[in-house]
């Protein structure tokens, strides 16, 4: 057992608004500068849709993530020899047009235009070249588009759906959309770390945050190819790759990452997970259908005395173990089995888990040709939810539909239980039956309800102390740091020659 600690996250998609507040919180702080303007370390996508960068999920094109090779795995498009031989030109790497050309407007024209015979206008100009452009894509171009010919129809997750199921997504009675906020997964088996020739990318020992050392990055850009989530970005100005830093400067101060803090849908949770690093390779090399379960098995019970002992043995701080025991992520992922990894088949063992959304009941057209939406039971059956189960399974369970159904049944059972508690107008057996079916008792249902509906900020975000003093002590006296902190000159991140 090699017990390590990892900061993990849960996004409750049933609560996601798709508002992008998270994206801007991040942008304001981290990527509001030249070369990074096109980067959205945190972005939100409308599903079905092609996302950002366009069709990022299509690993036939981008060759991100790992592939199973016997009992082990290898990087799909990067790696030691594959990567190095394409060092001079990497055919699998997205270029800026796969994201979008960042632009601004000639706002000054509104102030400076001479009196003329027509109204002056601020036209869009490229943020790279300064020339007039007509934006043709953006970081959120297919926002709320849902059933659209150009975007939704090219959603990679459609490939396992039948043509009839695909077509249904474009009919009013059956169509739907939901949101998928995305950021770096700070994976347990990060492909970017594995692919970086310079060794600039590493996981932080104490919390598992994956960082790109800006001093060591040499712009080989293998991380951009290797990350199947396309969450490593190349700064075209500084010639360095950058990615989500999980707001470690904020984490170290006990604050939630900016995107989490600002999540106004309150969909986000953060917490420590203890895991057994010895199991990484085997879990990542599982068969598709076992991927989710085997990943979950890596995470260990923080209340198990053997685990605690092993954790202490590895030098994990008591305060971190305590946080792991209070971790909301552990509850959602392990205790309740409600949250699933995104595209586990990429085999990076991501640490961001999603509770899949409950979507409106499917409707039908009656004999008069009008729209009807009725259901036998109060909320409608999960099977009649608008999104095909296969689609959801393609996102969250490497195609295993049962996994998705189990989660949705649990969510519905909690709702039925709470209806019973607060209203009591449904047949008693409906709630009881649903809970039984979902293997859940009242206590668990209430606990899920409370953490879903009522949590306060510090229940959603249980962040372990960073113990920065211990790190500082290695290099200089902590007392000195206290007195010196902040003094000195800072260098702007200027491009090399």
């Amino acid at each position, binding site marked *: 057992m090699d017990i390590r600690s990892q900061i993990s996250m849960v996004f409750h998609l049933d609560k996601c608004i798709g508002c992008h507040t998270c994206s801007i919180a991040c942008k304001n702080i981290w990527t509001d500068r030249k070369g990074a303007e096109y980067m959205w370390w945190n972005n939100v996508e409308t599903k079905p849709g092609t996302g950002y960068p366009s069709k990022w999920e299509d690993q036939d094109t981008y060759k991100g993530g790992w592939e199973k090779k016997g009992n082990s795995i290898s990087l799909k498009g990067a790696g*030691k020899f594959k*990567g*190095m031989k394409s*060092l*001079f*030109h*990497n*055919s699998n*790497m997205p*270029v*800026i047009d796969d994201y979008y050309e960042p632009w601004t407007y000639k706002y000054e024209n509104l102030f400076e235009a001479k009196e003329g015979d027509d109204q002056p206008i601020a036209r869009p100009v490229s943020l*790279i*070249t*300064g020339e007039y452009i007509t934006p043709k894509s953006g970081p959120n171009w297919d926002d709320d588009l849902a059933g659209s010919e150009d975007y939704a129809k090219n959603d990679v997750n459609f490939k396992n759906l039948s043509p009839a199921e695909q077509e249904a997504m474009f009919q009013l009675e059956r169509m739907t959309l939901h949101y998928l906020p995305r950021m770096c997964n700070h994976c347990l*088996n990060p492909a970017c*770390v*594995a692919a*970086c*020739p*310079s*060794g600039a*990318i*590493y*996981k*932080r*020992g*104490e919390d598992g945050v994956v960082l790109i050392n800006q*001093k*060591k*990055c*040499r*712009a*080989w*850009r293998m991380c951009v190819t290797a990350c199947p989530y396309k969450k490593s970005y*190349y700064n*075209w*100005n*500084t*010639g*360095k790759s950058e990615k989500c830093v999980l707001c470690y400067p904020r984490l170290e101060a006990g604050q939630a990452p900016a995107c989490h803090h600002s999540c106004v849908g309150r969909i986000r949770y953060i917490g420590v997970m203890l895991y057994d690093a010895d199991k*990484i390779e085997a879990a990542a090399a599982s068969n598709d259908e076992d991927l989710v379960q085997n990943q979950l098995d890596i995470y260990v019970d923080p209340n198990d005395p053997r685990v605690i002992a092993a954790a202490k043995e*590895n*030098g*994990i701080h008591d305060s971190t173990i305590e946080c792991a025991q209070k971790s909301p992520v552990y509850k959602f992922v392990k205790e309740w089995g409600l949250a699933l990894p995104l595209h586990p088949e990429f085999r990076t063992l991501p640490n961001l888990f999603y509770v899949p959304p409950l979507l409106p009941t499917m409707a039908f057209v009656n004999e008069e040709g009008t729209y009807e939406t009725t259901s036998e039971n109060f909320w409608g059956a999960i099977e009649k939810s608008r999104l095909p189960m296969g689609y959801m399974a393609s996102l969250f369970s490497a195609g295993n539909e049962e996994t998705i159904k189990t989660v949705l049944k649990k969510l519905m059972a909690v709702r039925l239980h709470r209806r019973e508690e607060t209203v009591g107008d449904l047949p008693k057996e409906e709630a009881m039956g649903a809970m039984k079916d979902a293997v859940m008792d009242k206590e668990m249902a209430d606990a899920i309800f409370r953490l879903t509906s009522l949590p306060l900020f510090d229940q959603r975000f249980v962040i372990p102390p960073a113990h920065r003093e*211990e*790190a500082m*002590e*290695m*290099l*200089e*006296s*902590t*007392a*000195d740091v206290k*007195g010196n902190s902040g003094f000195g000159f800072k*260098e702007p991140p*200027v*491009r*090399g*020659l």
Partner: protein
Amino acid sequence: MSNNFFFIGLPYAALVVLLVGSIMRYMNLGFKISSLSSQFLEGKELFYGSRPFHWGLVFLFFGHLVAFLFPRSVIAWNSVPVRLLILEVSALGFGLSALFGLLILVVRRAKNRRLIMVTSKMDVFVYVILFTQIVSGLWVAYFVRWGSVWFPAVLTPYLKSIFLFDPDISGVAALPLSVQIHIVSAFTLIGMIPFTRFMHFLVYPFRYFYRPYQYVIWNWDRKKIRSSRKLVNGVRSKNN
């Protein structure tokens, strides 16, 4: 006089600058060391430029290196005319490949507005010096033929003399101008390494081949008790 300058002063200056400059840059300005790849802004044409250019240069570089390090083996290899021909033709081929690549790269950079935005003055200089180097090399290859024969005989001793701090420029002084240009431009290139994107070939990631996939860095070893008096970099508290 000028010979001393170009073939003694310049090489030493270049080597010193290379050594000191790149170490200093690496230590102090780590952030500014990057291959400054532009594939992100333009990927298609780069394929036709970068690959022939880089592979051409890589082989030529190693060819020159082999000629310098193992002059006798090269001479031995060349003893059979066919082998000489193969060597010379492939060298010429790599040279042409590099030139072809470079031309594409230059044209690509000049016509693409996005790339102009990320092109520095030093990049222009890099292009000029590379162009000089490659064209002069090709010139030599064509007009001063059988370089692989005379290189071990003339240039290897010269280079050796440089590295042994006993410079002997008699050989090079007598060489045709095109070869001299090639040499001067080579040393200029070497000297400019710390100030240009050339830095990136100094940081070629060999270590990658033998490291494990996952890389975890800790700030401190939690299993050890540390004495606050034993600081890693040996600095003691100045306060209190």
